[in-house]
């Protein structure tokens, strides 16, 4: 059983996935950030691989990616940093990124290497269903990586069921069609999440985009298996200071 499946078997409510950008705030802070997240109560780490043209990301995450790239972060460098991560990181780790840098690295090689260092799954927002089925899905499945599709309130039911059937680990429910880091109307989100609950999907559902604090986390956790926080944590890190202190304060604020 994959680490993600194991996690959801043990904890079906209030699962917290926190996004961080590899190589941010400093090139070599990747593991320090991950260890802090684990220590302070994150259940899953979503590790973003920076890209020059991240279409789904809002300003905060874009900016962290640009800093990470300027710091010298690459996929190759990231795998070096993660080589021994399983000595200290025991929670699931999911890599998030865009297709272009992965194609340059070599898609199959990327999947193989990800598995080798102990990565559990992939979120690739610009890898669509058709290309997943016909071109890239096999390498992901051959390497026993979970693949997490995004769904939105506008995704038609038939397609949503198909995306659920092809996803493993969890399903990423975007709270509303938008880029990351935008405020949402959570009364609408609740209606959407209740609809998802009623569909009896195969996968647990984590809600992302617009989740930034205890109030928003609670609002979506009531109708799902948990949530993903990205921009708000990156923003906290961007103010500078001790990573452990910032992370501890931030996660305390969300969870308690």
């Amino acid at each position, binding site marked *: 059983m994959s680490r993600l499946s194991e996690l959801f078997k043990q904890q079906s409510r209030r699962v917290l996935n926190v996004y961080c950008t590899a190589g941010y705030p400093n090139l070599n802070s990747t593991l320090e950030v991950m260890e802090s997240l684990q220590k302070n109560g994150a259940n899953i780490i979503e590790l973003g691989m920076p890209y020059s043209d991240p279409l789904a990301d809002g300003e905060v995450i874009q900016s962290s990616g640009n800093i990470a790239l300027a710091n010298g972060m690459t996929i190759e460098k990231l795998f070096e940093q993660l080589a021994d991560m399983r000595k200290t990181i025991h929670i699931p780790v999911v890599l998030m990124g865009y297709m272009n840098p992965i194609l340059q690295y070599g898609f199959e090689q990327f999947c193989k290497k990800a598995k080798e260092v102990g990565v559990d799954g992939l979120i690739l927002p610009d890898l669509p269903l058709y*290309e997943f089925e016909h071109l890239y899905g096999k390498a992901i499945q051959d390497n026993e990586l979970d693949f997490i599709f995004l769904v939105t309130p506008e995704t038609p039911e038939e397609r949503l069921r198909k995306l659920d059937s092809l996803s493993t680990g969890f399903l990423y429910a*975007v709270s509303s069609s938008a*880029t990351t880091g935008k405020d949402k109307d959570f009364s609408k989100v609740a209606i959407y999440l209740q609809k998802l609950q009623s569909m009896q999907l195969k996968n647990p559902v984590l809600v992302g985009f617009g989740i930034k604090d205890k109030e928003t986390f609670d609002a979506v956790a009531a109708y799902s298996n948990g949530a993903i926080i990205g921009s708000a944590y990156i923003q906290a890190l961007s103010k500078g200071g001790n990573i452990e202190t910032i992370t501890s304060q931030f996660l305390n604020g969300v969870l308690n």
Partner: protein
Amino acid sequence: MHLFNELTNYQAPSKEGYYGEFGGAYIPEMLYGNVETLKTQYLQIMEDPAFKAEVAALLKDYVGRPTPLFYAERLSKEIGTNIYLKREDLCHTGAHKINNTIGQIILAQRLGKKKIIAETGAGQHGVATATVCALKGMECVVYMGEKDIERQAPNVARMKMLGATVVPATSGSKTLKDATNEAIRAWINEPDDTHYIIGSVVGPHPYPDMVARFQSVISEEVRKQLKEKTGSELPTHVIACVGGGSNAAGAFYHFLNEPTVELVAVEAAGHGVNSGMSAATTQLGTTGILHGSKSIVMQTKDGQVVEPHSISAGLDYPGIGPLHAFLYESKRGTFMSATDQEALDWAFHISEIEGIIPALETAHAFSVLPKINFKPTDVVVICLSGRGDKDLATYMQVMDLKK
């Protein structure tokens, strides 16, 4: 990985938008609805006789089509062959860009959209979009790189006068690539009643095919005009400049499946292909994904998209449309390049011997004439994609230096 169709009809990508391995729709799920609506409806709408009639009427009475096919006598004599210029520079707003925006604005109306967004580099596509939005009374927001806003002030003023809102793209390198990112993000953030008018044969399927079809009026007219002038619909060569590749796609379109016609695409070499300051994508790029389609992309070995350089803002793009990537890879197209200096020299030369001041982009197409061995009997069509008014500041600098 050639899992997709082996293309024999170059005009028709696969159902999922692939020309060979290039194309597709590599977009986040948040854009799926909008793109899927377009994908399932664009052909149906475009083939509707009422739609065709509406587009044709506007192209005739508003844009000024058909544009002339002009026999360039002095230039032909100098090169030792027969050169015809397809005068897209005479279109309303000064370039071929409006062929596409006319088609897309009517399509947007058919889809029930209320608001238009667009990206622009030099501002030509932005002006062409603002123009049709004014014509149809639709809200228009144009994303433009902060750097381009500074260096293309007259076009920014034109867009504003036409009632458009110009939003500076401040991310990344603050040029066309980033303006396109911002336009796509804006489309993600307000998808319901908004249509995105992409200005070139780039972006997710069906944009490359849709824009090529709207621009194909160029080669449709060339065939008829050549028949009248030479007795044959077919030239021996068609030459066009390529950034994203919209004027080239339009000029090539009705000759794509005519193997006797040599299709010459001219990229911007900037300071020279190997100077580190170039935009010759097929020469410098590798297979990658940019702005929603798989194509040839200028990038680092780590897959980060790099900033190209060309003196002409319209060719200053690190990618190329998937159709062109396929023409390059399959060798159906001949890809050449011209430097900043060559383009400048030819802009002045064409002005002096033909009385036509071409846009800097277009000047690149002329630059390859001395590099091709033409026969005296050849019939060469050059797509004169735009006029040079917008480049006067650059041309004036050159004249000042010559003093």
